[in-house]
């Protein structure tokens, strides 16, 4: 017998899961972001304490000084869960792939001016390692953070940084060859102008408070480094050598525009929770901001020469405005 199931009109018993309904109000349909995020992490009745951190439960809100009544107050304005995240990144990578193909096919880098090439190689290739540090730090936040609403975007952020390290590697291989990757690594490890930045990155690798790490990495370092490289340096390279490098770094600049909204929203949520949070976050931001500026100054000087002081001022001013808008007192 033919059965047409589509014609049955059924009144559902409920619209969503109880935990989601408790947050949205009953009889409201929930989005896939909400069902795939809210309360996803276990929060009670853990069986054993970690052998590697017996002072804490497996997931433990006391791993940070920040206190929240509800860790699901954090909302990702992009509403990323795995599906929407991968779709968004697949779209971005498709465009970038097209750009890389075009540059390779047309040999657009063959006549890239020597001075611009040198500058790009020297300033951009060691950033592979900075991206790698950012990858590690976001893996950390995802692992030890509290509540899926904030840990989930951090695994996305971690993988994004890995992806960007790989795009930078490809630029290096396109512009030169693997010996330049080695040279960039040597510069990262030994060249004086990179050492303050490397110190900054290595110091963040051992930060135990995951929200502090969030500030040090996602708000402060990214917040100063990305505008420097993908706006200021990009303009310099474009002026000297045309827009090829802007094409090859388009992922990074689009990525920063997108992710900073999420970073700001997260900081704002935590800061507006309580004056105590606001004070802690502001103090972290201030101290990391100053250290990051110290770390970036030699690179800005090297890359931008006489424009460096003005650019540093502009970067600082823009960052301060952004932090203030996110509810911090600097």
């Amino acid at each position, binding site marked *: 017998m033919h059965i047409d199931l589509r014609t049955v009109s059924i009144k559902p018993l409920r619209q969503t899961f109880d935990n989601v309904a408790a947050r949205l109000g009953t009889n409201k349909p929930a989005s*896939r972001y909400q069902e*795939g995020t809210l309360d996803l992490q276990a929060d009670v009745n853990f069986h*054993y304490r970690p052998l590697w951190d017996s002072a804490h439960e497996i997931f433990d809100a006391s791993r940070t000084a920040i206190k929240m009544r509800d860790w699901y107050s954090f909302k990702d304005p992009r509403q990323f869960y795995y599906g929407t995240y991968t779709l968004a990144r697949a779209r971005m990578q498709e465009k970038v792939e097209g750009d890389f193909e075009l540059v390779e096919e047309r040999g657009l880098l063959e006549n890239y001016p020597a001075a611009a090439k040198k500058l790009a190689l020297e300033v951009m290739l060691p950033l592979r390692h900075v991206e790698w540090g950012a990858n590690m730090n976001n893996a950390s936040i995802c692992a030890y953070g509290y509540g899926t609403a904030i840990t989930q975007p951090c695994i996305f952020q971690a993988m*994004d940084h890995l992806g960007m390290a*790989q795009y930078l590697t490809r630029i290096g291989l396109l512009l030169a060859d693997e010996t330049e990757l080695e040279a960039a690594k040597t510069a990262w490890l030994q060249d004086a102008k990179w050492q303050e930045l490397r110190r900054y990155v290595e110091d963040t690798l051992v930060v135990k408070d995951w929200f502090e790490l969030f500030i040090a990495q996602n708000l402060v370092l990214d917040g100063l480094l990305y505008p420097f490289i993908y706006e200021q340096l990009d303009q310099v390279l474009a002026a000297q050598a045309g827009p090829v490098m802007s094409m090859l770094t388009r992922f990074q600049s689009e990525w920063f525009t997108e992710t900073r909204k999420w970073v700001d929203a997260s900081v704002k949520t935590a800061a507006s929770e309580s004056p105590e949070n606001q004070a802690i976050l502001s103090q972290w931001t201030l101290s990391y901001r100053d250290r990051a500026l110290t770390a970036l100054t030699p690179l800005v000087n090297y890359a931008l020469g006489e424009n460096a002081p003005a650019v540093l001022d502009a970067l600082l001013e823009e960052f301060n405005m952004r932090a203030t808008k996110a509810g911090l007192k600097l």
Partner: protein
Amino acid sequence: MDMKVAAKKLGLKERYAAMTRGLDWETTYQPMDTVYPYDKFEGIKIHDWDKWEDPFRLTMDAYWKYQAEKERKLYAILDAFNQNNGHLGVTDARYINALKLFLTAVTPLEYMAHRGFAHVGRQLRGAGARVACQMQALDELRHAQTQIHSLSNYNKHYNGFHDWRHMHDRIWYLSVPKSFFDDAVTAGPFEYMVAIGFSFEYVLTNLLFVPFISGAAYNGDMGAMAFGFSAQSDEARHMTLGLEMIKFMLEQDPANLPIVQGWIDKWTWRGVRMLTIVGMMMDYMLPKRVMSWKEAWEIYFEESGGALFKDLARYGITIPKCVAQATIEKEHITHQAWTTFYQYGAAAAFNTWIPEKEELDWLSEKYPNTFDKYYRPRLEYLGEQAKQGKRFYSTTLPMLCQCCQIPMFFTEPDDPTKICYRESDHNGEKYHFCSDHCKEIFDHEPEKYVQAWMPVHQIYQGNCFKPDVDPTAEGFDPLAAVLDWYNIQFGRDNLDFEGSEDQKNFDTWRQTAKSNG
């Protein structure tokens, strides 16, 4: 110039290395042991992470591209399945109970795997291994979310799904999977990789996913089938990672062998015990059966697992001792488990039932040595009682194994009529176990296992009632209070399938469809 062109063409392997481990460096402003504080205490000796063979070579751009394609397809199938009321196309509504068990027991483990791999993907000192683990961390989030999204529509129409997260952290039988994964993530990073990456993902995964996915396909559930199949292509990567990790540890230092062997023994048993629930689902909860648990064990453990351990023999690895007992028990455990769930059917968040006659016949045929002799008479008796309106529900609390946390229903390996009890003393307390292997696991790390959140002890200690409940009040009904705390809706989520709301709704909706058709 020619030289330069030649140098540009890195081999795939070198190119991938430049994209991953080439990013890493030896820290000097902070000591490496502070940057990676957790990868030495287990005693695993790694001399050269450069010897790590990448189990797969996937750069992030390719990852995003492939995975997005899979997601697009999967959600298109789900949307169509939901719009067409695909849930009414399943064999019969009893099948849906397998999905309830899946969402409450397995999906939270996918999430734990996500966080566990993020942890290991941060902590292992080798960059190649870290990248592979991080990718798995991302995949496991996918598994958790695609399962929730697939089952979301079932939740709208059927009971038992509505508070899966809350239930996972509280209900007595769900502490079996929860404690399994808590055990793995609280171990060191190398043990985690043996527990989850190898024992679970490599040795046992086919026993979990093949029955479940084929079960969904056999029973007309395109939605669950779709997420299962979609996840399997991720599993292929996860399996190669687990295997590489084992081989790498064994190749790095001979002193690693006894540690790794101990972990394989432990985690094979932990996994086998947990899979009792999967076996029970295969034999009892699928209206249309794929294969028996016994057959699945023979194909996926005895044959494939046997071949794997043969392959590992050159490293000195031997097949875990517990396999002998599991092989004897393959003819028993699913019947013992279902009979137990049937009797505790008031305290479970899914419906239970006695199989129909043809189903009992199928079990007799699949289990010629044991079913008629030990289990069929019991089930027939319980079924008879139910027909006479005396459906049996146990109201006592079972004793649980301190290690696997399963109620004590397993029998002595050499005597299927005798329940197996083992015990150990630790700091003047007695602890009980279902088997020699569970006892051995406890005896090796008693400080860990005494911490377990034991659901029955917790009830006795009064920790499983809502805060406003007064256990000293007259007429206090502890079982009802515990179910309330579990958020099991009495008469909707629990009890017999016969007469359940799910049964009635499914029949009504299907009837409407038939008359429309």
